[in-house]
C-alpha cells in the first residue's frame, strides 16, 4: 500500500486517488513545434529514483496536487498544492 499525503485530506491509501504521472512542463500550444508537443504528450523520463508527480484526490477533496516519490522505494517527500 502506498500512503499518499493529500494536502487537504491528510494521508490516504493510493487506491482512493488517481496517479496522473510525472509532471511534464506544458509548452505553449500556439507556438510549440510538433516535436515539442509530442514530447509533452508522450515522452517520459521514467527514472528509477525521485520523480515529481501529480495526484488527483478522486474520492476526497477532488483536487490535484504534486508530490515527490521515489519510484524504487515508493517513499514520498514534500507535498504542495498545485
Amino acid at each position, binding site marked *: *500500500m*502506498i500512503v499518499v499525503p493529500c494536502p487537504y485530506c491528510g494521508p490516504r491509501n*493510493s*487506491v482512493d486517488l*488517481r*496517479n496522473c*504521472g*510525472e509532471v511534464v512542463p506544458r509548452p505553449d500550444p500556439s507556438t510549440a513545434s*510538433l*516535436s515539442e508537443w*509530442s*514530447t509533452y*504528450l*508522450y*515522452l*517520459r*523520463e*521514467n*527514472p*528509477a529514483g525521485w520523480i515529481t508527480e501529480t495526484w488527483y484526490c478522486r474520492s476526497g477533496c477532488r483536487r490535484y496536487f504534486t508530490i515527490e516519490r521515489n*519510484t*524504487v*522505494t*515508493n517513499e514520498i517527500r514534500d507535498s504542495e498544492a498545485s
Partner: protein
Amino acid sequence: MARHAYKYSAGKLLKHGLTHGDWPRMWRRPERRDSYDVVIIGGGLHGLATAYYLAKDHGITNVAVLDKGYLGGGSGRNTAIVRSNYLTPDGVAFYDRSLDLYNTMSADLNLNIMFSRRGHLTLAHTDSALRTMNWRAEVNKLQGIDSSVIGPDEVKRLAPSLDVSPDTRYPILGALHHPPGGVVRHDAVVWGYARAADHLGVHMLQETEVIDIVCEGGNGRDGKGPGGKVTGVRTNRGDISTPVVVNCTAGWASLISNMAGVPLAITTHPLQAAVTEPCKVFLPTVVVSGSLHVYVSQTDRGELVFGASIDPVGTYRVNGTLEFTEELAGHVLELMPGISKMRLLRQWSGLCDMTPDYSPIMGFTPVEGYLVDVGWGTYGFKAGPVAGETLAETIATGRTADLIAPFTIDRFTEGDLVGEKGAAAVGH
C-alpha cells in the same frame, strides 16, 4: 563459430535414464570478445530470440547478448498465455505470426516447449464488452484467425467450473472463443532459444551489466541523442565496441534508452500474478475476463495461475500488495465460486513497460545503430518469437520489417498511434 549440436531425443532420454549419465550443459559461458557485430542488451526471451534469428536466418553470428543477471530472469514472470485475437489488424497479423512460430518451435529448437493449445475464452459481462468481442471476432475472421463469439451455454460446455447463471453481479453474457490460443512453458522457450543461439555461435554474457552506451556525433551530452551513432557499450566487465546496440530490456527500457539519449514514451508499472496450490485438473481452457481484470489457466501440475491488469501507480518496486490479493480473490470467485477453499501458494509481480497505445516500440531510432524492442507491456511473451524474427530482419537488411512498421518510434511524433484495445491491460 558454430559447434556440433547435442540433439535431444527419446533415445537419448532412455539412455540417460538407464545410465544416469550427465547431460551436457545447454549453453557455454563464453570468453567476452572486445568487439561484436551486434550487441543485444537483455538476455530474456526477446533478446535471445533476436540473437537466434540473426544467426539462423541471416548468418550474423558475431553477436553478444548481455544480461545484468541470468538468462530469462524476467521472462519467467509472465502468465505464459499465447493468442492472436487482438483488435487492430496490425496487432492480429503480428501476433498470429508469433503463434505460427510457437507451433513449430519444439521441433525447430529441439526442445519441448510444452505448447498446450487448449483454447482461450475472453468473457463478456456487459453489452458493451460483447460488442467489443464481436468487433474483435470480425477483425480476426477477416484475417483468417479462428475466433468467434459464443453464448453462455457454450461457455459452460467448454469450462464447466464457470458460473454462467444470469443472477450474478457480473453475469457471463458470452465470450470470444479463440481455439488456437493456449499456454507455453515460458522457461523452456528461453532455454530453447539460448541453447539454439549458443549452437550457432552467439555469445551469451550473463552477469554483465551495461553501464553506458557510447555514442558520437549526437546533439546531446557526450555525443548521445538524435543525429549521433553508436560505437559501443560500457559494462561492469569492461568495454565492448560494436556498431549496433539493441535494447531488448523490459522494466529497465527507459533507463537503458536514456543512456543513448533516446527518451521513450514509457511508464513502468508492476503487474501482479499469483498461483494456487495444485489440485486435480478441471479447467480445460484459458479464461480471461477484461471487466474483472483477471485471467486464469491451470498448469500441468494442477496449479491455477492468475494474472491481473497492471498496478495503477507506475513504480519499479515489485512487492505484492494486499489490495491485489483481495481484488483478485473476489473476482476469481465471482467467476468460479467452487474454488473458494483453495489457497494461494505464492504471488509475484513483473515490470511492464507501458506505452500510451498498448503497443511496443520497435526498430530504428534517431541514433544510428541503436535499435529498440521495448514497451512490451502485458504482451511481450506471446510476441517473443515474432519480435525476434522481425527485429533480426530489420538489423540484417537495414530496413524496417513490414510487420513492425506500425510499431516504430516515429509514430509518436507523427501522431499515428496504434490503439490496441485487445491488450490484457485494457478493461472492457
